[in-house]
């Protein structure tokens, strides 16, 4: 497997996302899907972006990659890839990056592959677009790609159509397609959500392996904290278009501060629980992105909510460890937070009761 090309000139981080905003103009108003997100990513590292459906993570990924339809789109902020600014480039200019520098795999492998095109063709297409090689060589490359993603009988598979493969295999093919031109950065948007549980781990392991071999950076997007545990170097938790907590993985699980993160973690069912343990879900639903409420966006569903939360939106404040940021007035694990929770339990706030009933979170 060839190493991805090195760019000798640039010394800084591979990807710098600074205060990116992505809004859509619709009949109902302006939908603020991504409302000021920042993070950086170095080569070979993985950042996990975690959040519920509707929090803006998919829009973020597509926005950073520049894949959103342009009509009615408002993009602000800065996305620097190897120091070069991507926001403001036309799709034509972006094509120089797509496939060869940036790649993406999507949630549902069945709909990500062209149903009427052979798999081999879909891979070689990418290869021949970016590398000036002959068809024969491209096919060989495709075959070895399929082998590297552990697809049995790769040569035969080249002539197959997507519907002839199982879900797990299809996702592997998508990975092969995405990696065909040797990109430096891979966005994986809920790569395992549509797959069987047994297959999920395999695909994730495969992706990690490819990443190591190619020294590739990865943005792993999911709603499942369990997926990023142990696989991401850094984790960013998103809610209502903003990052509400960001930390190196170990720090996050050990020392989470934002109640939403805690709620997410406690909603994962654990094997150690007794059977029939009630799942701790987060009550309520995400806010309207056209007219978001004042103050903290998570306040209506938060177990720690106090009056201040409804008035002022908390800024990103650094935490105890390096690289840890969070947005909360009454964070978890602090005296103010504990007081707030106690008060809410007394008031019989549903979210607080749910949390109190759940086991203490330990990782």
């Amino acid at each position: 497997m060839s190493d991805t090309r090195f760019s000798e000139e640039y010394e800084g981080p591979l990807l710098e996302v600074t205060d990116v905003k992505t809004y859509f103009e619709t009949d109902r108003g302006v939908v603020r899907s991504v409302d000021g997100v920042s993070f950086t990513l170095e080569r070979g590292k993985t950042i996990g972006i975690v959040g519920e459906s509707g929090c803006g993570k998919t829009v973020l990924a597509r926005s950073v990659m520049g894949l959103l339809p342009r009509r009615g789109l408002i993009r602000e902020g800065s996305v620097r890839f190897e120091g070069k600014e991507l926001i403001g480039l036309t799709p034509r200019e972006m094509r120089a990056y797509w496939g060869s520098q940036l790649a993406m795999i999507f949630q549902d492998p069945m709909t990500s592959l062209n149903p009427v095109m052979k798999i081999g063709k879909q891979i070689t297409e990418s290869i021949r677009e970016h590398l000036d090689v002959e068809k024969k060589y491209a096919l060989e490359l495709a075959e070895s790609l399929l082998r590297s993603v552990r697809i049995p009988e790769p040569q035969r598979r080249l002539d197959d159509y997507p519907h002839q493969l199982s879900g797990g295999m299809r996702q592997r093919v998508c990975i092969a397609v995405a990696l065909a031109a040797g990109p430096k950065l891979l966005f994986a948007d809920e790569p395992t959500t549509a797959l069987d549980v047994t297959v999920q781990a395999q695909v994730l392991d495969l992706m990690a392996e490819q990443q190591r071999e190619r020294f590739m950076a990865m943005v792993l997007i999911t709603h499942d904290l369990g997926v990023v545990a142990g696989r991401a170097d850094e984790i960013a938790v998103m809610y209502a278009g903003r990052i509400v907590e960001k930390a190196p993985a170990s720090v996050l699980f050990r020392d989470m501060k934002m109640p939403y993160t805690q709620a997410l973690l406690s909603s994962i069912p654990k094997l150690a629980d007794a059977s029939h343990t009630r799942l701790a879900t987060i009550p309520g639903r995400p806010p309207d992105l056209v007219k978001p409420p004042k103050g903290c966006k998570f306040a209506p569903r938060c177990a720690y909510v106090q009056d201040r939360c409804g008035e002022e939106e908390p800024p990103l404040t650094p935490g105890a460890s390096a690289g840890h940021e969070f947005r909360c007035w009454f964070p978890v694990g602090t005296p103010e937070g504990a007081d707030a929770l106690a008060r809410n339990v007394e008031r019989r706030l549903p979210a607080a009761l749910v949390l109190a009933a759940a086991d203490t979170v330990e990782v």
Partner: protein
Amino acid sequence: MLRLIASRILQFVLVLWLVATFTFLLIRLIPGDPVDVIVPTRRIPGSVAAERAKEVRRDLGLDKPFVVQYVKYLGNVATGDLGRDYGSGRPVTDTLKTALPVSLQLMLYAQILALTFAIPLGVFTAYRAGTRADRAVNATAFGMLAMPNFVLGLLLAFIVGAELKWLPTSGYSPGWLDPLFSNRTMDLGPHIESMILPAFTLAVGQIAVYMRLLRSDMIATLQENFITMARSKGLSDRRILWRHALRPSSITLLTVAGLNVGTLIGGAVVIEVIFGLGGMGKAIVFALNQKQYVSLQSLILVLAALFVLVNFLVDALYTVVDPRIRRARAA
């Protein structure tokens, strides 16, 4: 797979039989007596005319019981005997040999022209959906749909034929298909000249329909995930449109274009009359005018059979275009 083909063929034969029966009934159940038309003054009994009428009746087989007529008819059709013109004795198959290739070529040219314009327009308007260009093209298409094809034909004949004198306004010269059917020889230049205006007239109405169909399917396809995936691979928009989006979107277009083939053959009647082409349409009109019901019956039957055959082929073509259907059918 074989079972599938067999069942399709069975359906084909069944429909043909039904249509043959229908045409047979149509002609026999209408008010008035066909003999009346051939020998109008037979009312006076005992006259020469009355005798003649009896002869005619016998010749046409109309004196036999209904059921016998029907069986004889089916038998004839099955063996390929499509009857003769009364009076001249000219077999219908002769009429077919000259008329059918004309209609077939006209229909083919019209379809090719229509698709040549409609496909790029459909792709373009889907790609640029919602823009002014799209709206302009759609409005024009709408207008084209409203224009009756005979009016357009007359206008084209007027403008291009009479005023500009670029092309002939009527008449037909044999083309490449004619030698296969009859002993006419191809006269390519004049053939093309004589076919351009009628083919174009027919095509215009289809362009609007095909374009809108393709556009609507393409717009839906362009929103699918695999298109975004293709974009994320760095492929050019052009490649994506033509190599990725077009094929899955063309199914409805294919169905309609295929079904239209049969309709076009018959529906081109008016165009054939306006431009003086001796095709199936003209033949049918002629048979009607001359009250040649036997010919008429057979001509309509042939048209219907063609239509059914085309549908059958279109169905088969589906599986080629979309491999998923191949699998679903086999299951």
